[in-house]
């Protein structure tokens, strides 16, 4: 397990990789990857029992990125964790690369292909029923998919204490605020009504995330609502709709890296 200071270093490198990939030929889902950074970094470096040398270890914990469009964040974290070479990130979205816009199983560490929203939690039910400890990371806009709530109801009914849903609550979907599209609030109350234990935290605070992920299970599934900021780390984009997808030109790319580094140097969260 990494100490908190190192974890902030790792999260910073992950953000740099994300920005680099958004400067590739196709751009990338920038905002929702930056909001996800601490969530996946804490899970892969402090919580999940996984071994990059044995990605198929039959007893490993399972992470499913149900918001598959956060792929570039996942690739960056997997690379930092040693599942794939960091240099491979430069192939993202290039012809012939296994690093697609949504993750596939050919990438070491990716358990299931995702991208069509609303699939992860049902899959998580299956892994949990099979006895695995499983974390399913969902987008908040994704919660508009009805299949999420089918699975949420079933998980509670089965009392799956080894299942945790993590909601990246950045409050924005592609075209605007979730609350102006299909309202989700009261979101914590919704999960509770489905029979889940709910934990809310600052989704960019590693210590708070760690506590939310590791507090002993109450014998039923746990939903961690991680309050995040879309585009976190790039102030000009934070909390904006245009952060959703970016195809950075060379100048924007260099400027974004400079902003990330300056903020990191200042110790800004």
């Amino acid at each position, binding site marked *: 397990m990494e100490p908190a200071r190192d974890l902030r270093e790792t999260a910073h490198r992950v953000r740099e990789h994300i920005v680099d990939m958004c400067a590739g030929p196709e751009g990338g889902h920038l905002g929702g990857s930056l909001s996800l950074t601490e969530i996946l970094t804490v899970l892969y470096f402090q919580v999940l029992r996984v071994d990059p040398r044995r990605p198929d270890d*039959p007893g490993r914990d399972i992470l499913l990125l149900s918001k598959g469009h956060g792929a570039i964040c996942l690739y960056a974290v997997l690379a930092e964790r040693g599942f794939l070479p960091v240099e491979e990130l430069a192939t993202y979205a290039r012809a012939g690369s296994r690093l697609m816009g949504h993750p596939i*199983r050919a990438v070491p560490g990716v*358990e*299931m*292909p995702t991208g*069509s929203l*609303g*699939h992860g*939690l*049902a*899959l*998580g*039910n*299956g*892994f*949990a*029923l*099979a*006895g*695995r400890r*499983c974390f399913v990371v969902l987008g908040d806009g994704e919660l508009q998919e*009805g*299949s999420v709530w*089918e*699975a949420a*109801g*079933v998980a509670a*009914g*089965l009392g799956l204490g080894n299942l945790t849903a993590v909601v990246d609550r950045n409050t924005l979907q592609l075209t605007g605020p979730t609350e102006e599209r299909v309202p989700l609030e009261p979101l914590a109350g919704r999960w509770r009504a489905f029979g889940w234990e709910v934990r809310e935290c600052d989704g960019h605070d590693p210590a708070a995330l760690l506590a939310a992920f590791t507090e002993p299970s109450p014998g039923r599934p746990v939903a961690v609502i991680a309050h995040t900021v879309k585009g976190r780390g790039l102030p000009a984009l934070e909390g904006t709709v245009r952060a959703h997808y970016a195809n950075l030109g060379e100048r924007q790319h260099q400027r974004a890296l400079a902003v990330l580094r300056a903020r990191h140097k200042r110790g800004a969260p």
Partner: protein
Amino acid sequence: MSVSAREAYRDALAELMAADERVWCLDGDTGLFDADAFGPAKDRYVNLGIAEHNLIGTAAGMAASGLLPYVNTMAAFAATRALEAVKVDVAYNALPVRIAATHGGLAAGHLGPTHHALEDLAVMRALPGCTVVVPADADQAVRAVRQTADHPGPVYLRLGRGPTPPLASAVPEPGPEPFTVGRAQWLRRGPDVAIVACGPYPVLAALEAAEVLANLGATAAVLNLHTLAPLDADAVVEAAHGTAGVVTVEEHWRTGGLGGAVAEVLGERAPARIRRVGMPATFAEVAGGQRDLLERYGITGAAVAAAARELMEGTAWEGET
């Protein structure tokens, strides 16, 4: 004695569960199962309720963990409501999920078009790596379950609802050749016309038509093409060879199912005249039991015999498409 294929499936599954701890039964609240019937394996029976997307996704997660889940729901819900989960979670990952789809075709009868599955074969056989089996009776359902128990990829098993007659009673001596998943079953051989069918009533209609034709002096080949994927293309070509043409019979819309599969094979390998007997492009307009609806929509031995005669007489097809 007529036996229900879905009940035969249930009993075959109970045997598998007793023999192999990896086997689970995930139920979509079908009412077909009593957990206690699984004895010591009853903890591996789970009723996941009325939530079909979740049912398939959960099965995929279990299969990815090394288990062998059997999923029970109606064909209409497996093949359409839960299709994206079947495609993305099961087929894409080539996982060993077995979908036991009851109420195939018109078997739901009076329950109406919401519960009829007349597109499922087209849908399922289009998914890469998905084995699609349509047993012609309860005995074949049991054999299909046993023969695919260790199959590494997904299996779609289309079952009916009520009891249907055993096939052996309808096949002349020496009876049907053995049932093997992936290999078409010859029920009769003949040079004049070929009839290719799948499913209990279509296969019986094919055999009935062959009798009608025999009384008219024509000898028809009858092939039970119970496995639509992977398709036994060689048998289809062999059946068609030298005949006046091929009649396909299925309890499915005429588009994309057995008739479509046979047309694809023959179109590429051995162009032949084809007549497809199946559900016309309509939803059932009235109530009726399965047999009533088959009669109403022309999936009968008489219709098959008429189509075969047209092929043999070389007349133009004037039926609905």
